[in-house]
């Protein structure tokens, strides 16, 4: 039944992506002060949230793995970390694009969400490198799980410290999205939903790929 799930998810993702594109570019009005560039907000915030969700899944799967040694939990953790890094990369690409036209500069160290995303990107890139260099056996799963837990516990602390850092180093311009137009809200939540579906679909694909790799390894050992 797994293949069916994948098909349903892929079709649903495709449809929702088109719906969100329509909502972003045709349905939602153009923002008065920021202009067309504001449209990047929908994708930027959605990828940021989905990336964060992915890292949370890594955390939960890591705990499950350490508790009962489930092979599936380890595969899901790695697949989710990969997707999380991908989405965080997108966040870090769209962020400066938006900031450039809004603040007049690519990067501002006093924007805690963006800085946290950058630090998360480094942490989970480290996770992927660790996974790659920790060999093939069950120890790798234990190592990455331990790191996955330590890393995620750090996330709120990183966010807090970066926000306090802003308080002691006042920014030039504080960004707060404030009240969104209702039609913009619709466009935003639909986009968020579309990216969450995309995440689930990619996670499904990644998990299947991980399982196939496992089977391949068992076959090779059998030979």
């Amino acid at each position, binding site marked *: 039944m797994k293949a069916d799930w994948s098909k349903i998810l892929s079709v649903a993702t495709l449809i929702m992506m088109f719906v969100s594109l329509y909502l972003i570019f045709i349905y939602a009005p153009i923002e008065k002060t920021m202009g067309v560039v504001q449209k990047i907000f929908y994708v930027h915030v959605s990828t940021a949230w989905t990336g964060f969700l992915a890292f949370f899944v890594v955390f939960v799967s890591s705990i499950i793995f*350490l508790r009962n040694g489930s092979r599936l939990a380890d595969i899901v953790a790695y697949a989710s970390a990969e997707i999380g890094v991908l989405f965080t990369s997108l966040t870090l690409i769209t962020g400066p694009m938006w900031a450039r036209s809004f603040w007049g500069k690519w990067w501002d160290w006093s924007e805690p969400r963006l800085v946290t995303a950058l*630090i998360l990107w*480094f*942490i989970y890139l*480290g996770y992927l*490198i*660790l996974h790659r*260099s*920790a*060999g093939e056996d069950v*120890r790798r799963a*234990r*190592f990455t*799980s*331990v*790191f996955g*837990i*330590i*890393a995620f*516990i*750090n996330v709120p*602390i*990183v966010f*807090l*410290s*970066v926000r*306090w*850092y802003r308080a*002691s180093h006042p920014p030039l311009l504080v960004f707060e999205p404030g009240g969104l137009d209702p039609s913009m809200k619709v466009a935003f939540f639909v986009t968020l939903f579309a990216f969450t579906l995309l995440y689930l679909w990619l996670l499904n694909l990644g998990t299947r790929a991980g399982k196939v790799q496992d089977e391949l390894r068992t076959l090779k050992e059998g030979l």
Partner: protein
Amino acid sequence: MELRTKELFNSMFLFALLALIIFNFAFAGSMPKSVLAGALWVAFLFASVLGLNRSFVKEQDKGCLEGLLLAPADRSAIYFGKFLGNLVFLLFVEAVSLPLVTVFFNRTEIVRHPLELAGILILGSIAISSVGTILSAITANTKTRELLLPILLFPLMIPVIIGAVEITAYIFEPKGTIGQWLRLLVVYDIIFVLVPYILFDYVVEE
């Protein structure tokens, strides 16, 4: 054991000192107070990696860890032993470097409040050593070993470095408030002594 410790101490100490001297030239000989606090912590963090990297590699090479695991002691005792060893080592390096930095950079403010400074050095070093110890136990078992530890450790140390630098700069020149940073560091230390303690079993399990 004795010899190896001495070698390691010398390397870490010289590394920290060299880093500070390079900072001095990088900032054209005039480090403002806020930069001095930052330079100290960068030097100590980087130097700590040298020590942390060695803390499990030797055991790995000579099979000592198996011996330790066979010992009829709680495995978390190994974690605490390694953690305290790394901590004491790092503090020792810091304690020896600071008087020299005071002389080289003509900064009397470094030694003006020795107790406060010792306090923040201990708080910051606990965080570096505790997270560093469990990560080094992990990376000692990987193909890339020494290369991997700083990549995993540094991003996790960012809150610690921000807090430690803010407090150290405050000790050098009282300005603003540091209550929240002190709380952050204390909470960080408590969490990251307990969490590796719980997880260490999974890392050394054969």
